[in-house]
């Protein structure tokens, strides 16, 4: 029986390319003015899934996202990078979901896929930074979870070994499958799309799944199923509180430049 991997992904506003019109006058995000991207840590999760597939050629990778029809872009992107399949949970009844309702919808969608061996997702999305959806999906599916994963060390049909980040170091964890793993930005970058896959898959549509197809209780979806209420949104101006001491060497300066470029500061 084939090894089934699910990757949880989200299409998010590209917060690295924020223009002057990115915020509305009332302090809310003007999503229309922001380009969208594949949430960066979800891309890292996809790469980890593809690494498993590299080692287990019969494995399949299915990417699941929830969002407007436009979110199909990240499913296409994931397929071009090597995912076998993917779909978008897209329905007005999913709209306005907080992490509780989102994780419920995702977990119900995953249940429809039958036996799943491994679920991977980014630690958190750059538009919300909650880091709650992955763990909540694991709880709802009643499977163990490994969070803050940085590297896939080994995998077989029964277990997975992961190096995960701790506050002051890392630890290696071996977990029995099925398990849900959330991946941090320190993990390997995702491979690029492949030109041949892009051409072959360019005409294949992405499946849209609605709320009726996931055997869900409607009261637990979208705004209705979301106890979280946003009281207020405010702009926060970051101040210079932290400092980094650099050695006056070429290597240290190169490293700083590389970091600043990577963070899109330069």
């Amino acid at each position: 029986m084939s090894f089934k991997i699910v990757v949880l992904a989200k299409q998010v506003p590209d917060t690295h390319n924020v223009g002057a019109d990115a915020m509305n006058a009332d302090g809310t995000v003007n999503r229309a003015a922001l380009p969208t991207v594949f949430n960066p840590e979800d891309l890292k999760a996809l790469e980890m899934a593809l690494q498993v597939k590299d080692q287990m050629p019969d494995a399949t990778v299915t990417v699941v996202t929830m969002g407007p029809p436009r979110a199909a872009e990240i499913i296409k992107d994931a397929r071009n990078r090597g995912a076998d399949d993917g779909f978008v949970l897209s329905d007005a009844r999913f709209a306005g979901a907080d992490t509780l309702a989102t994780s419920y919808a995702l977990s119900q969608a995953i249940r429809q896929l039958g036996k799943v061996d491994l679920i991977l997702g980014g630690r958190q999305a750059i538009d919300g930074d909650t880091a709650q959806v992955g763990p909540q999906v694991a709880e709802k599916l009643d499977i163990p979870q490994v969070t803050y994963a940085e590297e896939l060390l080994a995998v077989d049909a029964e277990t997975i070994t992961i190096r995960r980040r701790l506050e002051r170091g890392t630890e290696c964890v071996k977990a029995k499958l099925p398990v849900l793993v959330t991946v941090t930005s320190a993990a390997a970058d995702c491979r690029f799309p492949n030109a041949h896959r892009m051409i072959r898959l360019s005409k294949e549509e992405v499946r849209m799944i609605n709320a009726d197809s996931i055997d869900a209780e409607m009261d637990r979806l979208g705004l209705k199923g979301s106890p979280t209420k946003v009281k207020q949104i405010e702009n926060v101006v970051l101040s210079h509180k932290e400092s980094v001491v650099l050695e006056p060497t070429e290597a240290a300066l190169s490293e700083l430049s590389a970091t600043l470029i990577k963070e899109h500061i330069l």
Partner: protein
Amino acid sequence: MNFYTDNESLSFYLHHPEMERVVAVKEKDYAEAGQHPEAPASAEEAVSQYDMVMNLVGEIAGEVIAPNAEQVDHEGPKLENGRVSYAPGTRRNLDALIQAGLYGISLDRKYNGLNWPRAAVVMAAEIIARADVGFATIWGLTDCADTIQEFGSDALKDKYLPRICQGATCSMDLTEPDAGSDLQSVRLKATYDEAAGCWRLNGVKRFITNGDADLHLVLARSEEGSTDGRGLSYFVFDRADGGMVVRRIENKMGIKGSPTCELQFTNAPAQIVGERRLGLIKYVMSLMNGARLGVGAQSIGLCEAACREAEAYAASREQFGHPINQFVAVQDILARMRARTDGARSLLYETARYVDLSASSRAASRVADILTPLVKLSASEFANRCAYDCIQVHGGSGFMKEYACERLYRDARILSIYEGTSQLQVVAAVKGIANGAYLKQIESYEARVAEMLAAAPAGESADADLAARQHCLDVLRKATEGYKRFYEMATVEGSTSKRFEHATRALTEVLASIVMGYLLLLDSFRDARYLKSSQYFVRESIGQVTRHIAALENC
């Protein structure tokens, strides 16, 4: 950063109206449509595929290759025990492109290529060269595969072409210590080994770009006792078969990430490509024409990088209370850099389209042959001048190692030397000068411009542009008449005279200016922003021709 999407000119040329014919020729009237899952059924679908994949090339160039360029320049490749190891950044660049399926993009789909026409291949080369010219030489050498595809036996193609599409690197082993521009003097010996059923290579190759590649195309003397080009044949040597060591890596001024090697072949087993004796006169010439277009693309990539470095610096650097791009002296430099980049680019893609059309038309092939030396000459010389101007815009800072412009300056220098020096491009252009082929091509451009002007709709805003275009046409006609007069004066003592030989470089440059002026003028009908760059070449052509005539009249 994406080096394709941030440069509108690339999409402009990818969507050139003539691409419809180019694609039809390359796709053999869409014979594979429905037979192969990647084959397009129309020009529109093909161009949309190029656009999609070019986006990927642009992403890898902007996100991987460009950020690695400085470190690669510092570290360079290393030689240990006769083997070359690339700088780590070069390895990452290669891995990204291999993973993305961007090797062997011109090859047939049956070998897992993308079957791209030259007009699309050189665009990918330009994008990669903008990120790092040195790396572009390594990637661009996969063009060697085209020679195997065109002239090799089926067995050779089946053996090697799929490997190239999977990322096998290539080198083109031509130069020897005593055979540089004069390849007829090649001495590396090829002898047939009856027992082993293969050829054996013995001798030394020098200045071989990417010399420790997986696959080598080697020019060698197969005919015992011969001394000229007719005794040379072409061979493919597989590095994995042994018999070759890298003796040294040259310590170069620029493109330092690209290993330039001296190779010693000792009984190295090899297989012949095509027929004996045609190595230089047919196969290398074909490969070289492709390589010259490739260097044109590299040069334009470098021009684009230099323009952007200079424009960005001039916008941010303030002197006398203003950004320096507000001063006319700096604006002049920036406009000249941009015009040269635009002109060379328009010429590059025009030539590439003719190369593609050559597959079905002798006339197109003749035009490709005369335009190729113009591209190589103009683009590589412009790259050097753009790199110079880029440093000039940076002032004293540009002389320091901190800015990319100093690397561009060093990298540019080889472009007018390798794959045929500028002087050899002039030699290649002489035939077209003497037989009037260039003038014929210019006349066809003139007729097209006149036709488009006549058909252009009138209107208030259009009138000003029309008048400007008409003026350009008038001056280009005048420059063409001047060129004819210049040619007559230069050949007054005959077309084999020293006087004519001295004038050939200037004649070639005038022709190049006129051609670029016309091409940009034609482009301006599709996008008015090219009018300004056209005007630069209009002024250049009339200025050059007037000066040369005056010089001949006075001496």
